[in-house]
């Protein structure tokens, strides 16, 4: 932003030049913005296709070529029983695993940032390893575990697995917030006679609340999107991505695109609200000069 201002001040001082040179100068100044626009358009292109094809009237069993406009699938979004069941499973699984993983991950983050204990390095490694292993290894190892221990595959094994691979993400989000806020606030509360629990409830928890919310959201989205680990450990239970995978072999109903669009719009709305909320909150904090770090 400061560089923009500098350019704006500089520009009139330049000697007058011809139109091509000016166009070149404009391109040089705005090239990076044009690139950002194009790259984001590329990232969003498949999403546009998903939404567009939710209005398709496919000619065959596959919703891959455009056959004409129809709002039919939107009007009968939940008319395919198997698909609706899979969606409900996915939402239940995401709600359960995101909350459980955030509770466990927040505990780990608090311990890793605020406490010194034997085994800290091991705990750090445990947080990072599942995230940095390829999903297929995580998924196949878990399946081996369930096969050998004789645990029946189904919703319960999906929940165990989703909580496991979400803990690390929750821990990292909460930890990044814990290391960035001023610890003297906690010390001040302790000096004023607050016990550890009171300090946590009145100072720490409100300060990390946005990160906890962010962690739940992140884990929810990751669980909703997971295919690979679920593919290995679901048994006959279907989640939304698993339904889509099964359907892709015999023909995908347009309702899949409708539900994908709904999930996209829903999670995007939550994300947008979070961005707006954090911006307002930051402004309020800057106004109150509560936090020296922006």
């Amino acid at each position: 932003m400061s560089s923009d201002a500098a350019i704006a001040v500089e520009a009139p001082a330049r000697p007058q030049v011809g139109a091509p040179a000016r166009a070149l100068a404009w391109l040089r100044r705005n090239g990076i913005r044009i690139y950002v626009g194009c790259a984001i358009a590329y990232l969003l292109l498949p999403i546009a296709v998903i939404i567009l094809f939710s209005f398709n009237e496919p000619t065959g069993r596959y919703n891959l070529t455009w056959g004409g406009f129809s709002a039919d699938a939107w009007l009968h979004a939940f008319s395919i029983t198997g698909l609706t069941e899979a969606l409900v499973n996915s939402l239940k699984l995401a709600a359960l695993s995101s909350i459980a993983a955030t509770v466990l991950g927040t505990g780990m983050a608090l311990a890793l940032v605020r406490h010194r204990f034997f085994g800290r390095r091991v705990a750090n490694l445990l947080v990072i390893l599942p995230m940095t292993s390829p999903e297929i290894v995580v998924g196949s190892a878990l399946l081996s575990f369930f096969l050998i221990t004789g645990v029946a595959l189904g919703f319960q094994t999906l929940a165990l697995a989703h909580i496991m691979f979400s803990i690390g993400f929750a821990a990292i989000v909460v930890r990044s917030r814990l290391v960035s806020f001023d610890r003297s606030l906690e010390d001040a509360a302790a000096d004023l006679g607050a016990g550890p629990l009171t300090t946590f409830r009145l100072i720490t928890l409100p300060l990390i609340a946005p990160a906890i919310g962010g962690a739940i959201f992140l884990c929810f989205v990751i669980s909703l999107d997971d295919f690979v680990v679920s593919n290995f450990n679901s048994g006959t239970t279907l989640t939304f991505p698993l339904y889509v995978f099964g359907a892709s072999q015999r023909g995908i109903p347009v309702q899949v695109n409708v539900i994908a669009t709904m999930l996209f719009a829903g999670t995007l709305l939550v994300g947008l609200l979070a961005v707006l909320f954090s911006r307002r909150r930051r402004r309020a904090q800057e106004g109150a000069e509560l936090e020296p770090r922006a």
Partner: protein
Amino acid sequence: MIRRRLTGYALVLPGAVWLAIFFVVPMYLMWRLSLNSGSVETGFHFSWDWANYHEAFTLYDTQFFRSFYYAAIATLIALAVAYPLAYGIAFHGGRFKHLLLLLVLAPFLTTYLIRTLAWETILNDQSPAVHLLNDLGLISGGRVLGTTGAVIAGITYNFLPFMVLPVFASLETIDRRYVEAAQDLYASPRTAFWRIVVPLSAPGIVAGSLLTFIPAVGDYINANFLGGPNNRMIGNVVQGLYLTERNYPMAASLSFVLMALITVVVTIYLRLAGSRALTGDDLSELG
């Protein structure tokens, strides 16, 4: 002091035990499973049967090589695409920074599988995009789907946000005064970029490369939907052996070899990059 230490354990143990039971123990059991012999019909028994590991390297060396090759190319392309994007958002995003970042993440809000199916829609033989490419003579053979290029493009697209985010995070932390100082000392914008910005963003580049490369090696969705029979990656083999053929010991050994090879490659890479980007507290900058 002791009470404080106990609080630390009380906080860390539930999560740590969960990860130990459902990540560490399964890894060990998968290794044991890989040394089993027998079949689904006769039952499996542990027998120190190392033959699976021999077969892993003799029967499936092509798929292993292909996986690492595809992942490496996709990581390089992702870096080339993501760096200017992250740079533009960090240095020229202004008040739209957070919105732009949200748009970069937007693909994660649609199901991975459906995103890949959308590329199948875009790249299938009847699609206008493919007709255009054909008319321009940019593709030989008339098809995009079922080619190596399609698989690598799919992998690149699907893991691109993993590259953008860490690079953006490290660009954000660069003190702009360094860049101004370089320009005050008569460095051209180009020199300032290559000598100041790029080296200071190295941790982000290292982290982004790993976050892209590691899931890319094990991926089988892109090869499944966008590739042909000659594009099968090791992930496709492991999935097939586990879930269709139920040759668990063979599948387990392949999965284990995959993990070991990735660990070796990542260790060498981190040595060469000389970075602490993926250990301990430095990861906090990804959050």
